[in-house]
């Protein structure tokens, strides 16, 4: 059986950054397993720009960002296997992979990094009534068809969901010659970046219908149109507000779900708030030697955060292997999200065994203006940071200094204080 110090599941931005960091921290025997025929993950189809402002101080497109990392992986001689699907990860870190070249093979790993990314919420999970014709796609699938296959799925488009993927596709379809009639958004606010509202909707005069949703899909074999209705505070459609929008394409951008089937089958504890693994400050999951980073851990907005987080995971995996096992001999303190904070990553910190400052990443539950992010342990305030505005669609990143955390023995609370 082939043996590795580190097996990384996924060769997207998370997997690549983790691999580079692990190698920089001394691990030689690494392999990245990637199901696609090239490294890069989802970035390969994200041909728009906005990537890398923090990491490279440049604004790059998705493929450019991916290529920077892929070039480094190759330059460092880090092995990777493409067209390889991981079928199973066992608790004792035996990874079962499948590829044309190797067939079904078990490999043994001293450490594993989960970097499988996420999937899109499909129409069926949204319970949108109506027919099931051709022409209904999740935004990412449409993006793949347009950008990687050169195929435009339709000419008259309606988009449900104002997340970034939906907004980006509104612009993309328009530039490819389609007409985007509207973007409907269930919530009273958009979940996408403001710059995308400007560049993708305002620039093209595409209306954004907040507090609206699709209530019917018409057309038995081919999509003929959708019915959009306004919703009330309970998100229930308001009778009488229905409007028919003829279209041949409906794009759904209604949420991303971390792809944790392998993690669940392995026995990794999952946080129901993120649908990703529960991890400590080193991004180690509930199973020794198994780490998680990137969208599989929690869905990110900025790939720069993914790269930083994944570098941390790579370093932790390297430490784990060099130590010959987990160092966590002390009980960690819990990190508790409250008062406006929906979840935190990590969910626990081994304050007695820190090797550096700790990033806490979180999302808020609603829109908060002129507020403060407060982190305390008991009565002890570890951090207070003012913010003009916090929104659920933008992940927050705070750094708690090692010296502030070292003596903490009480649970750490992260919350929002409104002025």
């Amino acid at each position, binding site marked *: 059986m082939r043996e590795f110090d580190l097996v990384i599941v996924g060769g997207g931005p998370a997997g690549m950054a983790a691999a580079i960091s692990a190698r920089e921290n001394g691990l030689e025997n690494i392999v990245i397993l990637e199901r696609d025929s090239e490294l890069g993950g989802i970035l390969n189809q994200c041909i728009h720009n906005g990537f890398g*402002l923090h990491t490279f101080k440049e604004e790059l497109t998705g493929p450019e960002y991916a290529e920077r990392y892929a070039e480094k992986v190759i330059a460092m001689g880090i092995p990777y296997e493409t067209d390889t699907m991981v079928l199973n990860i066992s608790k004792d870190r035996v990874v079962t992979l499948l590829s044309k070249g190797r067939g079904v093979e078990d490999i043994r790993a001293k450490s594993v990094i989960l970097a499988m990314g996420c999937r899109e919420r499909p129409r069926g999970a949204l319970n949108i009534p109506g027919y099931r014709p051709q022409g209904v796609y999740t935004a990412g699938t449409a993006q793949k068809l347009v*950008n990687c296959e050169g195929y435009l799925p339709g000419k008259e488009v309606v988009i449900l969901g104002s997340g970034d993927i939906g907004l980006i596709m509104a612009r993309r379809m328009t530039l490819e010659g389609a007409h985007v009639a509207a973007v409907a958004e269930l919530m009273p606010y958009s979940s996408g970046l403001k710059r995308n509202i400007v560049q993708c909707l305002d620039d093209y005069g595409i209306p954004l219908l907040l507090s609206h949703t699709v209530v019917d899909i018409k057309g038995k074999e081919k999509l003929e149109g959708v019915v959009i209705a306004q919703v009330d505070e309970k998100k229930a459609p308001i009778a009488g507000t229905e409007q028919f929008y003829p279209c041949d394409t409906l794009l759904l951008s209604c949420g991303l779900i971390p792809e944790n089937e392998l993690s669940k089958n392995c026995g990794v504890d999952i946080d129901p708030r993120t649908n990703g693994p529960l991890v400590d400050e080193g991004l180690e999951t509930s199973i020794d030697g198994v780490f998680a980073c990137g969208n599989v851990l929690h869905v990110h907005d900025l790939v720069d955060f993914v790269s930083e987080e994944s570098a941390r995971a790579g370093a932790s995996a390297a430490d784990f292997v060099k130590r010959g096992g987990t160092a966590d001999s002390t009980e960690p303190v819990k990190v508790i999200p409250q008062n406006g904070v929906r979840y935190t990553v990590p969910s626990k910190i081994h304050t007695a065994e820190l090797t550096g400052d700790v990033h806490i990443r979180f999302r808020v539950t609603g829109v908060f203006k002129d507020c403060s992010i407060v982190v305390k342990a008991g009565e002890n305030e570890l951090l207070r940071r003012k913010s003009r505005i916090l929104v659920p669609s933008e992940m927050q990143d705070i750094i708690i200094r090692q010296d502030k955390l070292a003596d903490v023995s009480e649970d750490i609370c992260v919350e929002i204080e409104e002025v």
Partner: protein
Amino acid sequence: MTRELTCINCPMGCELTVEVEGDKVISVSGNTCKRGEIYAHSEISAPTRTVTTTVISSEGRPVPVKTAQPIPKDMIFECTAAIKSAEVHLPVKVGQIIIEDLLGTGAQVTATKTIK
């Protein structure tokens, strides 16, 4: 007159308040960096955008490209059309110039992915 703009330079999306007289900018506030001020000026007088799209290579493969410098916003559609009609043959390297000067704007169009 006061105009409210959202800066699109980076994901911060600062809300800018711009005092204008005709098409002259008097003052800019709300920005957290210099680029926001520059954006306010250009957005009022001569808005520009970066265009990202794909060109189908002669082998039938979509090649992602971008305008390496921003182009006038009101030329987005004609620029996109010009880009899409460019001739591209594989292999291409990331950064390779596909069009030297896009419709006289001075902007280069470069490939954003190496495809063999």
